[in-house]
């Protein structure tokens, strides 16, 4: 049986960033990434807003807040180094009434506590100067937010990982994980239906929508562990091009659908197109339905028309849909924090689970990869003979 030092399951932005980080940190270690699809980024990583978040929305001390703020900086550095297209256009989080303003002030305090750089509150006059076509009483300006070419980002991470010596192998679906002595035996099936196994000391589960299934293969009871993933579908609608120039920044309402609020963000993408989305509703646990229901345009329109007064229903065209891995929370609560767990307490040393890595996953990819590599240092660094 073949043996490597480390295996990463999943070739989305997170798996690629981890392959890049591990191979950069330890070029002498053998790092293998297994992806079930024909290439990288075929799952949720390719179906997002492509927003680089600043880290305002997430509770202080949460992993999301910490990794988002540090990841934001690392991501811009990476994009500069690898010539990944991005636009640091900034984000306005807008409030429309007194209740919204209270939330906005809370977000501002949270932004300061999270050490998000350069955020500032704007009044309606300030907003009019920046965004004359947006109706809002107040806003929180987040200049470190932006938008990134997520495909080029993943292609660069894959290229960098390969150059560092990481092995990225596609069309390999993992179906079993066994622990034997102090190593993991990973069973997988290839495109021809042939089954094989490979052994490793360090194992990272970055399987996105199917991360709970991978965790359960190692014997973890996902319900007891709180790892059960629920697929949450988010649709996007594009806005007719002639109105695209009417907005300059990313516009996010104080409470967005993604975080159990009522609002829907307005995204200005790299090509200057405007998109609305995502909304959020649960899909079945096996759903791969990426269709967009044209009829939902009316709901989108109704939701955003109070702050995007220049819009008309006919301006909305169906765009893309994505599925996000969501963890169960009590009704009405915001989504849970990322689960990034080195399973030492479950007696699975060297096994790191990444569960519920949804937004702001792209922003966090490099900081999260560093976090995981630090977890694995004790496993990979001891002076054992490299396989």
């Amino acid at each position, binding site marked *: 049986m073949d043996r490597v030092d480390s295996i990463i399951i999943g070739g989305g932005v997170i798996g690629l960033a981890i392959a890049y980080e591990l191979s950069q940190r330890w070029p002498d270690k053998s790092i*293998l990434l297994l992806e079930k699809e024909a290439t990288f980024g075929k799952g949720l990583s390719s179906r997002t807003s492509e927003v680089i978040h600043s880290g305002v929305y997430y509770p202080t001390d949460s992993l999301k807040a910490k990794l988002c703020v540090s990841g934001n900086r690392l991501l811009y550095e990476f994009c500069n180094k690898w010539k990944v297209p991005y636009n640091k256009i900034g984000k306005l989080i807008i409030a429309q009434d007194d209740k919204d303003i209270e939330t906005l002030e809370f977000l501002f305090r949270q932004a300061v506590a999270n050490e998000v750089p350069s955020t500032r509150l704007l009044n309606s006059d300030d907003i009019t100067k920046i965004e004359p076509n947006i109706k809002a009483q107040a806003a929180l300006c987040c200049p470190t937010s932006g938008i990134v070419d997520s495909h080029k980002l993943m*292609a660069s991470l894959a290229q960098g990982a390969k150059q560092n*010596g990481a*092995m990225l*192998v*596609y069309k390999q679906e993992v179906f079993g994980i066994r622990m034997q002595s102090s190593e993991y035996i990973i069973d997988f099936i290839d495109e021809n239906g042939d089954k*094989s196994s*490979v052994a490793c000391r360090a194992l990272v589960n970055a399987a996105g929508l199917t991360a709970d299934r991978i965790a359960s293969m190692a014997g973890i009871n996902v319900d007891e562990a709180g790892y059960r993933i629920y697929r949450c579908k988010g649709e996007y609608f594009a806005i*007719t*091009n002639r109105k695209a120039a009417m907005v300059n920044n990313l516009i996010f309402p104080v409470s967005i659908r993604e975080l159990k609020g009522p609002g829907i963000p307005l995204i200005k993408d790299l090509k200057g197109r405007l998109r609305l989305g995502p909304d959020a509703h649960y899909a079945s646990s096996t759903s791969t339905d990426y269709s967009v229901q044209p009829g939902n345009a009316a709901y989108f329109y109704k939701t955003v028309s109070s702050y995007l007064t220049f819009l008309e229903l006919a301006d909305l065209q169906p765009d893309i849909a994505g599925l996000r891995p969501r963890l169960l929370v009590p009704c009405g609560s915001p989504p849970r924090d990322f689960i990034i767990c080195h399973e030492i307490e479950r007696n699975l040393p060297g096994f790191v689970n990444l569960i519920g890595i949804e937004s702001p996953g792209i922003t966090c990819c490099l900081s999260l990869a560093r976090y995981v590599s630090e977890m694995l240092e004790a496993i990979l660094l001891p002076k054992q003979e490299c396989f």
Partner: protein
Amino acid sequence: MNICVCVKQVPDTLDIRLDPTTNTLIRQGVASIINPHDKHALEAALQLKEQYGGNITVISMGPLQAKEILKDCLAMGADKAILVSDTAFVGSDTLATSYTLAYAIKKAGNFDIIICGSQSSDGDTAQVGPQLAEQLGIAQITWACSIKYDGAAFKVTRETEMGFEVIEAKLPLLVSVLKNMNIPRYPSVSNTIKAHRANITVWTADDINISCKKVGIKGSPTRVTRIFTPERKGKNLIIQKESAQEAVELLLRKLTEERIF
């Protein structure tokens, strides 16, 4: 069957960008890949090996970074990889390249068949394969879409603008293959791990005993006077109307005005 496959490292085709001032390729941040046509050549070799047994040697001429694509070839299932690399080769045209490859192939062994992709995605000349056959003094069949072997001779189907030609040829033979010949396989985990640990043999100009006057810019009669991004002459028109009827009417009117319809 002793098989040789020639491969080239090319910039990822989706990523090709030209510097508008110098008209040269911007290579920074551009991924390098196996020339997509060459993957089909390797797949053809792998299928021949599966049917008739033998060994596959992949050879590339290029910078040392081309070791990466040779490792990709080993991961797909090639047995051995050789990189021919020397600063003397910089600026080689197709003639100098085929001359260099011919010497490398002669040194690498006696091959029954040499398989090339029909052309590279960057240069797009389709010259190196045929020139290589001439340099080696062996028969060649281009634009192949199928290769069969009966134990003594190859039967190759080639696709032409007029239809298909079936040609028989004895060994040794050079075949350049089309992309529609097969679907290249994905590398297996086991082969990828083997490739990761493999040492790629590197031969310099001295190793293959060639005349430095016949390689590089000196040995290349071709002169590229200019590479440029073609000017966009056409204008696009986006028709956005309230109703499909109005949009269709406007489209028809425009097509008629432009005498397209």
